[in-house]
């Protein structure tokens, strides 16, 4: 029997995809700064759904053909940066299974982030999120602006029996904060994210998980989506462990290693948007993914989009190093090692005393010395050899991943392949305004 209190994979993926139509002229494939008309948003969300996206062969994600095709479009909310108003998302309401449901959908955007501060400066990127701990400040600023925009729908949201928060990419990060906010207000909330980056750090992710309930968080990611790999430890995902039932890591459909195309929402729709899909089926797909840290390390380091960096020689070698470090950390009691990416692994090694323990192993130390020579890392002293090598390799890995993740965000879901022309820099708080 269908669970009427949760969105199906198709419904959730369509809702996430449709959030982009709130940005002016996204429908035509040539988005500009501004807000789309309410009539056009309604047409794309619950009407014929025809636009540049469908004309270029992608799935028509109108909800018209789904079980919630009769949902009512409520507010289309926006945010304002430096005096410029842009569409950010929309609210839907519907009744199902005798309950009142509200959907809050948020789109991804880079309007609030300068290139320099996306996923850089680990320490400086954090800010407090009341009641939960430290989260990325860019996402928090966007959440603050969205909260203002949602204020006019506050009564409807608070009267709902179930609140569904949905988003792709940075929109998933904002949806996470929206979900945590309403769960802290006592609402029953479901969270659905696609290609979501890591939002919380240093325990905030666990606090949000606890508030929402792990069974209410549906995390869908392609295994080679670079955005889902940032930022490394101490950031972490909600439902980030391989053992989490709703951590649905899927084989990337594009077949390209660590490609920006793996982040495209159209690809997520293709992965889970079939009408026959249910969450058990998505979980079953996830079970087939090779989560071996060594595999992740190899793919992270050998990117078809960045062929100049490392070759199979180095990737193979570093995959052995990953295995060695993984074994090392497991032996030292890091039970959550399986949930760490290669970069996390290095970050944890650095931030703990594990580097000193690594130096007790002669075999591992020999590897690390040779890794230093191979990686051009000059060891100037006898102390902290391991930390120096790890830091050098981690810095190089981040220099590969960060541009890929940033590029993925720039090209997010652009129907015509063009980057968003939003050039607003900085992360100032936004004043919301609502259309419709």
């Amino acid at each position, binding site marked *: 029997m269908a669970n009427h209190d949760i969105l199906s994979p198709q419904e959730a993926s369509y809702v996430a995809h449709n959030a982009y139509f709130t940005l002016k002229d996204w429908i035509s494939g040539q988005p500009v700064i501004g807000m789309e008309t309410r009539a056009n948003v309604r047409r794309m969300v619950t009407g014929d759904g025809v636009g540049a996206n469908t004309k270029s062969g992608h799935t028509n994600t109108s909800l018209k053909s789904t079980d919630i095709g009769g949902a009512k479009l409520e507010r289309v909310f926006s945010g304002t940066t430096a005096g410029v108003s842009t569409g950010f998302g929309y609210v839907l309401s519907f009744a199902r299974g005798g309950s009142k449901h509200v959907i809050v959908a948020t789109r991804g955007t880079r309007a609030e982030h300068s290139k320099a501060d996306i996923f850089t400066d*680990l320490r400086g990127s954090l800010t407090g999120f009341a009641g939960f701990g430290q989260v990325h400040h860019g996402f928090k600023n966007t959440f603050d602006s969205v909260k203002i925009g949602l204020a006019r729908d506050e009564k409807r949201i608070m009267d709902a029996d179930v609140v569904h928060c949905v988003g792709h990419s940075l929109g998933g990060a904002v949806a996470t904060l929206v979900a945590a906010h309403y769960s802290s207000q006592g609402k029953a909330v479901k969270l659905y994210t696609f290609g979501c980056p890591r939002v919380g750090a240093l325990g905030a992710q666990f606090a949000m998980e606890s508030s929402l309930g792990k069974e209410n968080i549906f995390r869908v990611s392609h295994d080679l989506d670079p955005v889902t790999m940032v930022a490394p430890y101490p950031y972490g995902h909600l439902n980030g462990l391989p053992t989490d039932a709703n951590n649905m890591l899927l084989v990337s459909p594009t077949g390209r290693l660590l490609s920006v195309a793996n982040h495209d929402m159209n690809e997520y729709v293709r992965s889970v948007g079939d009408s026959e899909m249910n969450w058990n089926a998505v979980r079953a797909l996830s079970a087939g993914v090779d989560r071996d840290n060594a595999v992740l390390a190899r793919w992270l380091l050998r990117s078809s989009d960045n062929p100049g*960096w490392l070759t199979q020689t180095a990737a193979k*070698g570093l995959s052995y190093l990953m295995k060695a470090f993984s074994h090392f950390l497991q*032996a030292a009691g890091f039970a959550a090692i399986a949930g760490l990416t290669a970069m996390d692994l290095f970050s944890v090694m*650095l*931030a703990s005393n594990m580097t000193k323990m690594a130096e007790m192993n002669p075999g591992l130390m020999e590897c690390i010395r040779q890794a230093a020579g191979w990686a051009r890392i*000059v060891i100037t002293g006898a102390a902290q050899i391991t930390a120096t090598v790890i*830091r050098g390799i981690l*810095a190089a890995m981040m220099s590969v991943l960060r541009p890929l993740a940033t590029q993925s965000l720039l090209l997010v879901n652009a129907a015509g392949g063009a980057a968003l022309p939003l050039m607003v820099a900085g992360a100032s708080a936004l004043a919301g305004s609502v259309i419709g």
Partner: protein
Amino acid sequence: MNRAAFEYVYLHANALAELAFLRALAGVAAAPPADYTADQLADNAAQADRMMHLGADEIDWAALEGLDDAPAPAAAAPVVAEAPAVTLPGFSETMDAAGLQIDDGPPDVAAYLATVERARAALQARVDDGVARADLAALDAAVATLPADLAPLAGPLAESQFMQWLNLHEARHAGLAAVVTEIRKLEPFG
């Protein structure tokens, strides 16, 4: 050091760096590090749990400084040579293009050296760039410390002669390590 000698030093030093790395890691893959003693784990268990549930007031950010775009204190930053000015494929990438095959287990040194020979023509531009940018005085000084009883690194080497240098490198000969470091600084990384 003239160009001809530099070319051999370039090829051999890069080969030593890669092969030593692969051999060391193949050794770890074949025999993972031993488990720690109960005492070592006991000392560490509490910290391991703490690291995975670290709070904002507990993390030592100094360990992660220098990993982002912000300038890092000199003491914390790793010493990595500047990226080369040219955008030519590096040694490793050229070897890959020449068909280098890396299988599980210890690398096949003979096959690796054969690949170096195949890649040699494609590496000439990189060698030219290296001659222009390398600290040749430092390189000469390092080469002068190498054992005189081995076939010169700055000339052609048979497999058995190269293996003597590889064994010496793995035994951590300081002069040879300095040569390898000077050459590896010329490679793109990251």
